[in-house]
């Protein structure tokens, strides 16, 4: 039963990952990542880390991805398809580094994958072929919030504090970076459209109908 669940979740994870990399529209990439994250949470549950799975869904998929969605909606931007990208089409400036790297990047990624697989699976550790250490269910068992909380406030107190500090810095930094600064040159320049000028009625020029393209 857990094997089936595993495979379903694994397929979800990998499919989501592929989707993030391949999909042209960044919005769809975000959605693919959300799917990936939820599948990953399932995998965490299979590994008996219920608290981390919950955090993953709530924080990662919930907050961070929402942030992403907002920014993507604001910024937008089209990207080329993977085929175009691999061929190096669609960029205005000479894409020397760009196009060569796209292909080389894929090769590098494959090389990295092979290495990692060899490293992780070909390792001499026998424990990886097992199912993990024994599990004793209980209120403070492995993976429960109480367990995590206990660890956070005893052994990993410094880490906990530093992480919260980091969050503070990140929040402030984000605000500072993206804030609106007063003055000129910040927003769209004022576009003077001929239609803005009041015209006497009845002139009937094309400009009134269509608009000018002097912007």
């Amino acid at each position, binding site marked *: 039963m857990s094997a089936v669940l*595993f495979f379903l979740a694994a397929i979800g994870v990998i499919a989501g990952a592929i989707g993030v990399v391949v999909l042209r529209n960044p919005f769809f990439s975000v959605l693919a990542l959300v799917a990936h994250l939820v599948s990953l949470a399932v995998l965490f549950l299979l590994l008996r880390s219920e608290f981390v799975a919950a955090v993953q869904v709530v924080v990662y998929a919930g907050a961070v991805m929402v942030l992403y969605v907002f920014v993507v909606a604001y910024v937008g931007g089209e990207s080329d398809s993977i085929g175009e990208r691999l061929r190096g089409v669609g960029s205005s400036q000479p894409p020397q580094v760009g196009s060569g790297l796209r292909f080389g*990047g894929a090769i590098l990624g494959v090389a990295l994958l092979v290495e990692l697989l060899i490293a992780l699976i070909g390792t001499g550790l026998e*424990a990886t072929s097992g199912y993990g250490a024994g599990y004793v269910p209980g209120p403070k068992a492995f993976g429960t919030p109480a367990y995590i909380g206990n660890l956070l406030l005893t052994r990993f107190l410094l880490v906990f504090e530093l992480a919260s500090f980091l969050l503070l810095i990140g929040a402030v930094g984000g605000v500072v970076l993206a804030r609106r600064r007063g003055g000129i040159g910040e927003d769209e320049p004022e576009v003077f459209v001929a239609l803005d000028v009041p015209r006497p009625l009845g002139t009937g020029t094309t400009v009134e109908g269509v608009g000018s393209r002097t912007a």
Partner: protein
Amino acid sequence: MSIEWYLAVSAIVFSLGAVGVMTRRNPLVVLLCLELMLNGGNLALIAFSRMWGNGDGQILAIVVMTVAACEVCIGLGMIVAIYRRHLPIDVDELRELQG
């Protein structure tokens, strides 16, 4: 499933993320792929935590998530700032820091 499987998935996700970082032009998507890599690492951490039976890996995974959140915050803030200045949202165009 034995832990090996989880580790394999983690490796695949990580490599996919790496390929995405190197390949995509939209910085938003690059950041997304960076998230992928982090998630791959998270999965490996949780798997090892399960293997040894102590919570160190899980704590570290939570910290990684925290760090990822901060990094996303800053990164997106930068992209918004770039967008506000009417610069193209394209990593190939944003190369003023060249030698």
